[in-house]
């Protein structure tokens, strides 16, 4: 009995001593840099990584989130990320990194050279949102937003807001982008971030502070004018190379095949009651979309069907009380016009992607899944020979 107690005591002592001396090698949260966003730019000698870091501080005096933007260079991305740790003494913790911004310089080469790192590494969650930047990624992360202390949080808000809802912002995660790239389509898209200057009452409306800007970065660089972000344009990729862009309405109608819309808007050119040209803001309140590949008489047809419930949310011309009272009902002519506009935009998107050899409608993937026997014979020339039929049905919401 005594021997057994001694044995358990020794085991307990070993565990206890380990816990007290090493914390089982757990990292102290105070020594941790929580990287909330990463920006990647291509430079001559490799990559420049800009990390936006939220620094946890043990204090009861302030509830402010502090952030700092740090950049480092390396031959590879991992090299650059490690460099941040080496220079600051922090453990760069990447599991809170929910946003990856790729600067315009990255798109000169196959973008998968960068994204591969995030797929390979267990340090970054591949559910992180990935987006392209109009300028350098560093500029986006250095910008001040009146909406949040931390610019990447302000940017993330526009991506997360409509994540489950069809919208003009085609939020893409690392996993989604790499899944598309490694599929038979070898195509993909990601939203493009543009910074829009805003006017503030004072010069210092944002409480953003750059506590530490190491590696010689100018703390005021890119932080002069407060900005908001726009991501209603998406960049198209084929074989990892940037080939083109699609704009707001094209993104919105394309996304209706993937997600249901609960509250999405587009502007429809209409003719007012006096016969003058005007615009109406149409709200899509409900949608159901289906995109399928069919084979008819030996020809492959991409068939897209959309059923939309829409209403008028606003017009740029006065309406009668009767029209306002009918809670945004569209007349037959306007419904027909909306249908034509959406179909026209979809055909235009398809033609654009086809001309760029970019299979964003995933027709090759559909060929592989549905007509697997025909895949090897037809996949190469599928986009050239593919016929397309878009059928949109618009109905009044109420």
């Amino acid at each position, binding site marked *: 009995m005594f021997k*057994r107690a001694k044995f358990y005591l020794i085991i307990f002592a070993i565990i206890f001593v*380990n816990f007290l001396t090493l914390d*089982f090698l757990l990292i102290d949260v105070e020594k*941790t840099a929580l990287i909330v966003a990463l920006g990647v730019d291509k430079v001559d000698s490799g990559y420049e990584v800009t990390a936006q870091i939220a620094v946890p501080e043990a204090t009861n005096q302030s509830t402010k989130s502090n952030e700092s933007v740090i950049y480092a260079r390396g031959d590879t991305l991992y090299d650059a990320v490690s460099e941040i740790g080496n220079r600051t003494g922090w453990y760069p913790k990447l*599991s809170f990194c929910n946003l990856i911004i790729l600067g315009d310089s990255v798109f000169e080469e196959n973008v998968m050279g960068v994204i591969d790192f995030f797929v390979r590494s267990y340090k970054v969650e591949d559910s992180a949102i990935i987006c392209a930047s109009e300028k350098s990624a560093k500029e986006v992360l250095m910008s001040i937003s009146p909406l949040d202390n931390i610019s990447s949080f302000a940017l993330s808000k526009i991506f997360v807001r409509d*994540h489950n809802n069809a919208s003009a912002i085609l939020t893409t995660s690392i996993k989604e982008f790499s899944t598309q790239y490694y599929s038979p389509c070898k195509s993909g898209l990601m939203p493009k971030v543009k910074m829009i200057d805003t006017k503030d009452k004072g010069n210092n409306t944002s409480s953003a502070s750059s506590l530490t800007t190491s590696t010689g970065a100018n703390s005021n660089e890119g932080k002069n004018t407060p900005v908001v972000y726009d991501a209603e344009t998406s960049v198209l990729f084929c074989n990892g190379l940037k080939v083109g862009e699609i704009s707001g309405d094209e993104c919105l109608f394309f996304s209706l095949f993937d997600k249901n819309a609960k509250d999405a808007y587009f502007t429809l050119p209409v003719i007012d009651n006096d016969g003058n040209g005007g615009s109406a803001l149409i709200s899509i309140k409900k949608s159901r979309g289906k995109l399928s590949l069919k084979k008819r008489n030996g020809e492959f047809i991409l068939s897209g069907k959309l059923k939309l419930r829409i209403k008028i949310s606003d017009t740029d011309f006065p309406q009668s009380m009767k029209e306002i009272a009918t809670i945004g009902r569209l007349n037959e002519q306007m419904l027909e016009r909306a249908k034509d506009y959406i179909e026209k935009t979809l055909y235009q998107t398809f033609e654009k992607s086809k001309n760029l050899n970019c299979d964003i409608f995933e027709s090759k993937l559909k060929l592989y899944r549905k007509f697997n026997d025909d895949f090897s014979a037809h996949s190469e020339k599928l986009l050239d020979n593919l016929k397309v039929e878009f059928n949109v049905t618009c109905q009044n919401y109420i």
Partner: protein
Amino acid sequence: MTNLKKISVRQLCFIIIPLFSVCKFYVLPALVSGVSLEGGWTAVLLSFIFDFIILLASIFTIKNLEKPLYNSSVEIFGKTLTNITFILYAVYFFLKAFIPLVEQKNTISLTFYESQPTLLIFMPFFVVAFYIVKRGVTAFARSVEIIIWLFLFSMLIIFALSVPAGSYGALLPLFNSPRKILAGSYSILLWFGDPVYLLFLGSYLKSKEKLYKKTIISYAVAAIITVFLVAVFYSIFSSVSERQYYAPIKMSKYSITLSNIGRLDYLGSVILSLVSVYAICMPLILCYDSINNVFSFKGDNVIIPFLVVFFEAVLIYFCQNEIFESIKFVQRYFVPVFIVFAYVLPLVYAFATLIHKRKKEKLNV
């Protein structure tokens, strides 16, 4: 070997559901998807069907043996052959725990830790494993009555978060390439062959009433959960699934709910890791049990459970950084050995039991 009959059929079923499935959740989905692509779930289903034959053979053996397996085996094959078989089975069970143990160690260190921790963080596992092994089958079966609920709760969290994230068109074309499906099934062979446990656990059964019905239903539940998990896994990751090791942690993080409530999915994964501790201890207990049968140790033995767990820890220590190389090594050299112990010997026992039973019946007539 008296006074063994201490576990019920219900407890046996509770062993089958979580412990026959949980070890197949971590590396297996990525491995089989790499070989069979969208047919991965079919390959897993095929492996379960092969195992089902062994399950039936094992239940047949249990049902028709009047004495515990070791005693019956001595009666049928003689003491020397039985002792050799049981010693070899002890080695087999020892090696059977190796892959899930390596997987679990890597899952914990790669997903719950930021930096690469040392083996020390995994040391408490060996302490717990030692205690579980030492307490033996009866205590194990009793604790599994709690583990089953933890398992079902973790599966509920994981499926609730991952099922809506899947794009199920990715599972097409169905039954695309039988060759790929067969190759996939072969590549995951090391994760199967669990029904052989029943052959040994059968010695502890209090009653054998409705044994067939209950074990088959439990086995079907374990198979359905595993096949469904692999299907959901491929529907989420499709073309990049080959890279997505440690599936339970990876697949449930894409739910939009998590952006509002935080990483709730870790709760399911942590609970599943706890269930895995039991799944890893299962073959270790049987290893100890087989040695105990051969040498008939008297009293409460501490040394053998300690040695079993200690050597497992030593093995893990030497292979800790080469998980995939270790798996490849075991696959290359041990698959034939594995087939003999997991598939051939249970069938031999079933035939021997049948012949023995008929001989007895003839003698009685």
